[in-house]
């Protein structure tokens, strides 16, 4: 899933101050899962904004809506009448949802209320962790299902580097050394000797480095 985090409230307030009719638009999928932009978060943020703007004696109407998946144009439609009646949209979906809103409502200023961060998983209670870098050429079978591109700070294909200490990355104690974990899991499966093979250079043209990507699926035509 896509993981995002709400922007600092002060940043949101500064950006939205100029408008008198704002709608907070959430998304019920990924950002709801990580408690950043779902229905509850829409209600709470709208409430905070009402309190904040009333303190400034600024009469602002804050509306609320929540879209099942803000990245799907058809799903935005049911809320479109409500949205078009506003002066500005504060989208607390991921960056994709924000862009869909901007595309659907080109005459309305659309503001991102979240910072979209990574593709990850709910690794443990209260904690989401990055798992996938979207490199476009998945070779997870070579590294016991642990992605060195996303989970090694240096994206090494033949790690670990000399910076690992006590199973942690040199960048931070919060980051496990991905290669220590790969070596451990490969060893447990009796496959450690496979790591003697040099994994050749990554070709980054399938990743974002090759330019923005697209996928065409003729079979998916309506």
């Amino acid at each position, binding site marked *: 899933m896509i993981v995002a985090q709400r922007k600092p409230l002060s940043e949101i307030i500064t950006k939205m101050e100029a408008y008198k009719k704002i709608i907070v638009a959430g998304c019920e999928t990924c950002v709801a899962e990580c408690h950043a932009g779902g229905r509850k978060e829409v209600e709470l943020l709208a409430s905070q904004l009402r309190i904040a703007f009333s303190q400034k004696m600024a009469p602002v109407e804050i509306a609320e809506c929540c879209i099942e998946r803000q990245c799907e144009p058809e799903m935005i439609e049911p809320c479109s009448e409500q949205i078009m009646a506003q002066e500005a949209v504060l989208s607390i979906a991921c960056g994709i949802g924000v862009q869909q809103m901007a595309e659907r409502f080109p005459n309305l200023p659309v503001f991102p209320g979240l910072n979209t961060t990574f593709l990850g998983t709910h690794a443990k209670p209260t904690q989401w962790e990055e798992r996938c870098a979207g490199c476009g050429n998945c070779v997870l079978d070579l590294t016991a299902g642990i992605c060195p591109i996303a989970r090694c700070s*240096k994206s090494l294909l033949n790690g670990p580097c*000399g910076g690992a200490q006590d199973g942690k990355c040199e960048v931070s104690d919060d980051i496990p050394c991905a290669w220590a974990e790969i070596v451990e899991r490969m060893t447990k499966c009796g496959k450690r000797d496979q790591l003697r093979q040099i994994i050749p250079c990554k070709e980054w043209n399938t990743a974002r480095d090759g330019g923005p990507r697209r996928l065409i699926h003729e079979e998916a035509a309506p």
Partner: protein
Amino acid sequence: MKSGSRLEQLLARGEFVVTAELGPPMSADVEVIAKKAELLRHTADAFNVTDNQTAVVRMSSIAASVLCLKSGLEPIMQMVCRDRNRIAMQSDILGAVALGIRNCLCISGDHQSFGRAGKLLGHPGAKNVYDIDSINQIRMFRQLRDEGKFQGGDPVKGQVPLFIGAAWTPLGDPVDFRVIRLGKKIAAGADFVQTQGVYDIERFADAMKKARAEGLHEKTAILAGIIVPKSAGMLKYMNNSVAGVSVPEALIRRMSEAADQKAEGVAIAVELIRDIRKIEGIRGVHIQPVEWESIMRTISDKAGLLPRPEIPDA
């Protein structure tokens, strides 16, 4: 000869080689290099020129290496994977060779977050390059030199004489994988290897035993790293915070109890060199007097490493 460098020639002759380090300045000041060169001249056979070490911007390794050459020192240009993609790396190697550089040490490089430390702001927001890792970097340079081909497959005209180096952290985490990784670097084409600083002779000897069991000491020249300690505080710091450096308690105690810690540091370094020479498979030492270039001559002298051997002009 792969490169004809002094380092390569001495190793080929079976000499016990000595390398040292020269850190470029955080400026464009050529005088700094010239002064360090004076302190280091004839104390070692070749000198590592670091590449934006700890992600702090310094004069480039290639430029500083050329200045070393001008001062009569043989450089070992270091090139990290953090800042350059494969295009820039190959380009810089062609340039380096064109300017007379013959040795290159291939390393991953500290993450850019390291640049923000102490009083320095660094550039923690810099884009993370790491296009290829050090093992693929070694392989790429070997391909340039031995097959006359760029990494992408295009041919290279002419020779690219280069003596390729790698780093080894024998006591790094996870310890039992480190010899395997050394093997990969050698298979990729590492002609020589410099280790992280050794203080625990016993544990290092054990790692060397494992390396010898795989015949690695014969496929490459392993040079043991010696970091010259200045104080007990420095030893404690390295033991706790520098990955792969393990300092025995007894050594820390010895340093704490010394009347003159700097003199003790010199003595410790000299003893480490003496003990490491006894380990089978060690072909030299890489001495690092951190922020203390002036002590290099004393160390080389006391360790019986002077004078350095001559290379007759061809």
